[in-house]
Structures are given as structure tokens and as C-alpha cells.
């Protein structure tokens, strides 16, 4: 556990808390982007270069932007969170309970006593590519199909029949 890991973890977690608790939706989205960046940083810190950068590219470059666009397109429906709302309290309580259980499970299981290797296992991009296209070629194709279906589905869902302006919005995504 290095200093950089601790810093990145703190950044990620505080940004995530901010993203889930800030009153304005846009701030939430921006904090979420920071949280995703921090998560990518943790991946890089753990030595998973390709995944960390893919995380940045997909989450910060695409998902965060998508969320921002969605927030702007659904303007006027901004509901400010009332801190004392029942759902907020019960949600937090449930989440804390889940965290207690998970933390207990992690700390008492054999995992926390396991000897960990210090060296990063090899993960050259070429090897990842070979693994993806040999061992995992079927899942890869399925993912490709899923993404295509999601693309078409998203376009059709967001398509507004009447005005042609919506078409562009659907296309950009």
C-alpha cells in the first residue's frame, strides 16, 4: 500500500461521495467524472495500464459526457435532494450496513492474510490482444454484438419522430 494508492483512493472515494450527495445534478456529474478518473488512476497504480486507460477513455470521455448531455436534455426536472428525506436516510443506513458486512467479510477472510506478490504480472497490450482474440474470442464477439445492439437501441429510444433536431442528438451518442 503506497502513498499514491492512498491518495488516489481518497480522491476517488471523496469524489464518489460528492457525486452521490451534491445538490446540483451537474456538480454530481462532474464529481462522478473525477471519481472515474481516480478509479482509472488506481488501475494504473496497480499496474493495469491498458485497463486504466480504457477506463479513462470510456468513462471520462464517453459515459460522463453522456450523463452531462442527459442532464442538460432533461432540464427543468432537477429535484434538489432534501437531506432529511426518508429515502436518503434509509438508503444511507442500508449502504452502511452493506459496507459493514463487506468489510467484515474482507477482513476476516483468508484474503487479508494471504501473501501477495510484489511484482506486477505481465500485461503487455499485445498479450491482452492475443488473449482476447484466442481464449476469449466468443465473449468478445458477444460484447461487440451487445454494443451494436445498444447503439441501435439507444438511437431508436432517443429518436424523436416529429422534429429532426433530435436526430442529431441521437447520432452524436
Amino acid at each position, binding site marked *: 500500500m503506497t502513498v499514491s494508492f492512498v491518495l488516489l483512493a481518497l480522491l476517488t472515494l471523496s469524489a464518489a461521495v460528492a457525486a452521490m450527495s451534491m445538490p446540483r445534478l*451537474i*456538480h454530481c456529474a*462532474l464529481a462522478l*467524472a473525477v471519481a472515474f*478518473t481516480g478509479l*482509472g488512476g488506481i488501475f494504473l497504480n496497480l499496474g493495469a*495500464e*491498458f485497463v486504466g*486507460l*480504457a477506463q*479513462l*477513455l470510456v468513462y*471520462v*470521455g*464517453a459515459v*460522463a*459526457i453522456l450523463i*452531462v*448531455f442527459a442532464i*442538460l436534455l432533461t432540464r427543468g426536472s432537477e429535484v434538489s435532494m432534501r437531506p432529511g428525506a426518508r429515502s436518503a436516510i434509509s438508503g444511507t443506513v442500508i449502504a452502511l450496513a452493506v459496507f459493514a458486512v463487506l468489510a467484515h467479510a474482507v477482513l476476516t477472510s483468508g484474503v487479508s492474510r494471504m501473501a501477495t506478490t510484489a511484482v506486477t504480472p505481465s500485461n*503487455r*497490450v*499485445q498479450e491482452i490482444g492475443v488473449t482476447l482474440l484466442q481464449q476469449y474470442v466468443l465473449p468478445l464477439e458477444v460484447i461487440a454484438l451487445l454494443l451494436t445492439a445498444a447503439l441501435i437501441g439507444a438511437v431508436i429510444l432517443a429518436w424523436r419522430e416529429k422534429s429532426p433536431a433530435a436526430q*442529431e442528438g441521437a*447520432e*452524436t*451518442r
Partner: protein
Amino acid sequence: MNGYFAMATGLAERVDQIFVTFDHWAVTNTPEPLRWLVSILLIVVPILAVFPGLFALTTVLERKGLGRIQNRYGPNRVGPYGLLQPIADAVKSLTKEDVVPRTADGVVHYLAPLVIVSTAFLAYAVLPVGRNMIAVHLDAGLLFFFAIGSATELAVFMAGWSSRNKYSLLGAMRAIAQMISYEVPLILSSIAVIMIAGTLSPEKIVLEQAQYTGIFPHWYVFTPWGFAGFLLFMTAAAAETNRSPFDLPEGESEIIAGYFVEYSGFKFALFFLAEYLEIFAVSGLGITLFLGGWSAPLSFLAVIPSWIWFFAKLLVMIGVFIWVRGTMPRLRMDQLMNFAWKFMLPMALIDMVCAGVWRFLPGGALWVVLRWLICAAIIVVPYVALARGLEQGRKIEQRVYRYAEEG
């Protein structure tokens, strides 16, 4: 005679590696506890010094070049030939009042220029500016470049949204829509290179191209798919960096200045800096991917240091950007989107197919010509078809004025 030749090449090698040697010398000659700091500083400081310097030079060259294109002089007052103009500009922007709108979202408004500049600088980490001259040896360098590049979109949005100005919001939305649309052909056209080079590391891609047949280099731009890919890449790069003719997000005549309307003084200068840094970075990537990076255009010219070649190529690319800016009018939003999705995207996909065909056709004596012809056909035929398709239904019609002719 042979001895002289060897000495000359040895000297050239020395000059070529002068920065690398200096870096090594400086790091080994500092005491152990400070080594990490020195090695970081020796990477960061040159990047922070050279590229903003290039930015300063480019602002003058651009204004002078545009002036000459329009038969004007351009700036010629400050210093010899107006070369000190950027210093005057810097002083001006530093001493200007920093105006922040009252209703603006202060924190986000403040952070946006910082984010955009820092991401622009980060992109240089993976650009090989010379032999053995790269800041970070990343195996997935290209992915890093695109990942960092995609973060600028968020910074643009932050700037546009936090200003509380409808023009800046419109500009930001335009910018993001445009960036996302053109990121697709940008990445797809570089995938063709990745397929051929078999690596995501910019260093290895350059090394792959820095070989010579006779005196001619193996640059990817000299192949059919590489040529098409280069044009696609640079077009998408121009759009990605909001560069004319794709500068709709900051169209002065329509939305004043786009997402940085509400920025003044030094923050505006930061946006300006970031924009140019992005242009340099993406041009540098184009050079790395297609124009052989730091390698010399002819084998015997390799005596000239590799970093000189890189910056010479970069200056040429900047010149081309300026030339294009002086030539073409701004596109309309629908034209922009049509161009991205109906022309650039299919062409980039076809380019990938072409690269694949090129990769798997045998490379025998007869096949060299045949391979060329086949690949050229794969590129040219869809190009002609797409161009005709785009031009169809775009007949220029007599304009009907709905209101003006009633009176």
C-alpha cells in the same frame, strides 16, 4: 576516408543524443535522495518550456501567414519583423482584469482552464520528439493519448456551463458534439496504423517506420491506406481541436466566441494556449503515426539530429493548418455532422479494411505492384462513390426569400 566517415557519423550520433546524454549525466551526478526529483524535472521542464514557446512563435507566424494570404503585412511592429508580439500579448493578458460573471459557478469556472491546460500538457508525455526522447515509456501510449484527449471535452463543458451564458453553453454543446463525432474517425484511422505496426507504443511505431529501402523511408503515408488514413486523421484532428474550418464552437459571428466568452485576461490566454497545445500534440501524433516521427525523409539525411526532424515536420504541419485556416470558410453544423458520420466514418472503416488487406497480401516482387493497385482501388472506389453520394441532392437552388420580397 572511411575513418572520417565514421567520425562524422559518430559526431552526428552524439548531437542526436545530446539531450539524452545530458539527462543521463544530470541524473547520475545528483545525490541519490534528489535523483527522482531531477529526473522528473528534466522531463517536465522541457515540455513546459518548449511547447509554450512554440505556441508563442505560432501565434505570430499564424497572424503573419494569414495576413500574407490576405495580402496584408500582419504584425510587424513589436521587435524585428514583429517577432516579439507574443511578449506584448502575454503582458497584456497578464495585466488585464479577470472578470467572472456574478452568476457564474465560481469553482467550476476557475477549474475549467486549469483542467484543459493540464490535459493538453499531459498528452505530450507519450510523443517521441526524437530518438530515445519520450517522456514516459508507455506500452499503451496511443490509448493514453486518446484517453487524455477525451478529458478535454469535459473541461470544455465545464467552461461552457459554469459561465451561465447561453452562448458559452451553446458553444460547449457544439464543441462536445463535434469532438465526440470526430473522435471516432480519429481513433479508427489510427487503428489502421496500430494493425500494421502491431503495437500501441508510439516509440515502436516510429521505429517501425524509421527503416529505409534504398534511400526511401518506410513511412506509412507512402502506402494507399496510410495516405488516406493520414488525410482522415488530420481532418479529424482539425475538427477535434476546433480548428478552422471546423471552428464552429467558437464561431465569432454566430455565438461570439463559444465556450470561453466569459473568460478574460489570463484565463482566456490559458484557453488559447490549450487550444494550440492540442493542435501541436495531435499534429505530433499524426507525424508519429504516418510521417515517420523523428526519422529523416531520406536515409542520408539521418545525419541531421532526429529532434530537428520532428520539429521541422511539426512546423510544416502547423503551416498547413494555418494555410487551411486562411483558405476555407466555416462549415455549418449539419454539414459538419453529415461529414463526420456519412463520409469520415465509412472512409475510416474502409481504411481499416484496406490496411488489413495490405497486411495479408504477400510481399513478393510482382505482388508489390499488385498490392498497391488493389489497396488503392479499395480506397479510391468508395471515395468516389461517397463523394458522389454526398454531392447528390446538393444542387444550388434559387433562394426564396420568405419575408424580404413581400414588401
